[in-house]
C-alpha cells in the first residue's frame, strides 16, 4: 500500500473555483433579497423564496442520498463500494450544513406566514375549506416545524454516527472477531438511518415541504418520485467526484469496474424515476378528475410545457440511450457528461415541481435561479473537498476492502 495516496490535498484551482461560484451566488442572493425577497410585491417575494426553497431542498436531499447509498450498500453486505466510500461519506457531511439552510428558509417561510407559498398557513381560508380542514392535523405550522427539525436533526445525527464508525477502519487491521463485530455495528447503524430515511424522504417530508404548496392536491407517488429524483442525482454526484479524484491521481483502487456499477445505478434509477413520473401522470390523466388534473394543467398545456417535456428527455431518454452500453458506463468522459446532465435535469425537475405550482402564469427561469444554483454548487465543492481532505481517502483496514479491489463486473 506504499504507493497509495491516502491524503487528499485540495488543489488551489478547485478552491478558487468554488469560492468564485460562492461569490457569484452570494451576489445573486443579496441582490435577489433586496429586489425581490423583501419587496412589497407578493409575486416577487414568492419568486425569491420559492427559488431558495427548491434549491435548498434539492441540495439537501441530493447530499443526503449519498448517506442512503452507503447505508443500503452496507445493508446489502456490499463490498464493491468500499474503495471509494469516502466520497459519499464526504458528500454526506453536507447534510447538516445544507439541512440548516433549508431549515432556516422553511422556518422563515412558515413563521412569516407566507400563505402565497403554503396556502394552508392561511387559517381563515382553512377554516372555511372542508378539504384543508381535514388535512389540518398534518398541514399546520407546529407539526411542520417539529417534523422538519426532527427530520434534519436525525439525518445529520444518524449519518454522523455512520461516518464515525467508518473511522475505525483507518486505525488498525481487524482480526476475524473484530471484523464481524464491526460489520454488525455497521449494519445496525445503517438500518437505523434507512428506517428514518424511509419515514422522511420515502414518505412524509416531500409531502410536507413541496407537495403541500398545492394544498388541495395530493399524490401518493410524490415522495417516491422526489426520492428517485434526488437519489439518481446523488449517484451522479458521487460519479463526478470519483472521476475528479481519479483525474488528480487519487483513488488507485477504484477503476472502471466501480465506475460501471455506479453508471448502472444511474441508468437503473433514471428508469425508476421515469416509471414514477409516468405512473403519477397516467393515473391522473386516465381518471381525469379536475381536482387531480389541476397539478398537470399548466405543466402540460401551459407555460411549463417546454420544461416539463425537456425534463423527460434529459432524465429518461438520454440516460436510457446513452448509458445503456457497457462501454459507455466504463468511459470516464461519457459518465462525467451524463452525470452533469442528470444533476442539471433533476434540478430542472425540482424547479418545475416547486415553481410550477408557485408561479403558474409564466416561466421566469433566469439569473436568480442560476445564481442560487452557483451558490450551492460552490458550497458543495468547497465543503466536500474539505471533508475529503480531513480523512484518509481509502478505509484501508475495512474487512471488505479486498472485495472492492478485486471487483469485476
Amino acid at each position, binding site marked *: 500500500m506504499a504507493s497509495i495516496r491516502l491524503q487528499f490535498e485540495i488543489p488551489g484551482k478547485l478552491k478558487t473555483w468554488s469560492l468564485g461560484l460562492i461569490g457569484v451566488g452570494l451576489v445573486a442572493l443579496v441582490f435577489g433579497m433586496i429586489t425581490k425577497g423583501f419587496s412589497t410585491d407578493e409575486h416577487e417575494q414568492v419568486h425569491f423564496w420559492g427559488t431558495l426553497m427548491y434549491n435548498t431542498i434539492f441540495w439537501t436531499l441530493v447530499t443526503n442520498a449519498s448517506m442512503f447509498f452507503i447505508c443500503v450498500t452496507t445493508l446489502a453486505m456490499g463490498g464493491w463500494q468500499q474503495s471509494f466510500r469516502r466520497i459519499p461519506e464526504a458528500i454526506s457531511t453536507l447534510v447538516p450544513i445544507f439541512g440548516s439552510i433549508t431549515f432556516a428558509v422553511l422556518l422563515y417561510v412558515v413563521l412569516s406566514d407566507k400563505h402565497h407559498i403554503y396556502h394552508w398557513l392561511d387559517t381563515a381560508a382553512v377554516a372555511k375549506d372542508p378539504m384543508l380542514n381535514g388535512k389540518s392535523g398534518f398541514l399546520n405550522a407546529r407539526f411542520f416545524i417539529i417534523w422538519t427539525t426532527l427530520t434534519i436533526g436525525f439525518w445529520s445525527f444518524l449519518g454522523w454516527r455512520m461516518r464515525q464508525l467508518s473511522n475505525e477502519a483507518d486505525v488498525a487491521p481487524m482480526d476475524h472477531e473484530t471484523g464481524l463485530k464491526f460489520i454488525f455495528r455497521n449494519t445496525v447503524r445503517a438500518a437505523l438511518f434507512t428506517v428514518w430515511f424511509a419515514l422522511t424522504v420515502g414518505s412524509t417530508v416531500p409531502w410536507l415541504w413541496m407537495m403541500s404548496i398545492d394544498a388541495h392536491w395530493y399524490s401518493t407517488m410524490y415522495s417516491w418520485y422526489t426520492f428517485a429524483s434526488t437519489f439518481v442525482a446523488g449517484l451522479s454526484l458521487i460519479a463526478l467526484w470519483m472521476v475528479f479524484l481519479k483525474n488528480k491521481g487519487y483513488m488507485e483502487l477504484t477503476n472502471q469496474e466501480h465506475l460501471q456499477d455506479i453508471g448502472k445505478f444511474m441508468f437503473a434509477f433514471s428508469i425508476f424515476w421515469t416509471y414514477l413520473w*409516468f405512473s403519477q401522470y397516467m393515473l391522473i390523466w386516465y381518471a381525469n378528475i379536475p381536482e387531480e388534473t389541476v397539478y398537470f394543467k399548466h405543466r402540460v398545456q401551459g407555460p411549463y410545457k417546454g420544461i416539463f417535456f425537456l425534463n423527460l428527455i434529459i432524465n429518461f431518454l438520454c440516460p436510457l440511450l446513452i448509458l445503456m452500453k457497457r462501454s459507455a458506463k466504463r468511459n470516464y468522459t461519457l459518465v462525467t457528461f451524463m452525470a452533469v446532465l442528470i444533476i442539471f435535469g433533476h434540478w430542472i425537475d425540482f424547479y418545475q415541481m416547486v415553481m410550477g405550482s408557485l408561479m403558474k402564469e409564466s416561466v421566469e427561469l433566469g439569473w436568480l435561479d442560476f445564481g442560487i444554483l452557483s451558490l450551492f454548487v460552490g458550497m458543495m465543492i468547497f465543503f466536500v473537498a474539505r471533508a475529503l481532505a480531513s480523512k484518509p481517502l481509502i478505509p484501508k483496514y475495512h474487512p471488505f476492502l479486498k472485495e472492492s479491489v478485486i471487483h469485476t463486473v
Partner: protein
Amino acid sequence: MAKKKFVVGCFNDEEVLFPAVKKVRTAGYKIHDVYTPFAVHGLDHALGLRETSLHTAGFIYGVTGTTTALSCISWIFTKDWPLNIGGKPHFALPAWIPITFELTVLFAAVGMVLTFCYISQLAPFVKKHHFHARATDDLFVMVIECTDTTNAEDLKAFLASAGAVETDIQIAEEGWWFGRYDKDEMRFENKQIVAA
C-alpha cells in the same frame, strides 16, 4: 456437420486450468471450448473470446417490440376500429405506454433467450456430443481441435504436463444434431469413443 478429431484434457482445479489455458494458447493450439461445472470468472478473457453481442441483439428485439406495439395499437385505435373510451382522444398515447413497455420487454426477453439457445446450440430433442460426463459435476474439460499437422499423442502428453488428470482423443460431431445419442455415447455408461 462434420466429424472432427479432438484432444480432450480434464483438469480438477481452476487454479491449474488457467495456466494450462495460457500454455496451450501460447503453444499455438486451437481451443475448441472449455466445459466447466460452473461459470468461471475470467475464463472468457483467458480464452480470448470476444465480448458477446447478445445485448445488441436484445436492444434490436426491444426496439422491434416497441415499434410493433405502437404501430399496431395506433392503427387499431385510430384507423381500424376507433372506440370512444371515456371521451379520450383516439390517439391516447399515455394509455398505450404500459402495453408498449410490456411488448418491448417480451420481445427482448424471448428474443434473447431464443438467440442464446441458438448460439449455444440448445434446443429440445437436439443432441450434442459430451466430451466428458463429469464436466457437469466436478471436472474442467478442455477440448482442443486437431488440424492435419497436429500430433495428437504429443498434445496429450503436453496436456498431462500442464496438469491434466485425464486425457484422451475423441472423434466427434462438433455441432448439434436432431435425434438420438449413438449407443456408444450413452452418457451414464460413461463410455468414450477412443480412436487413434
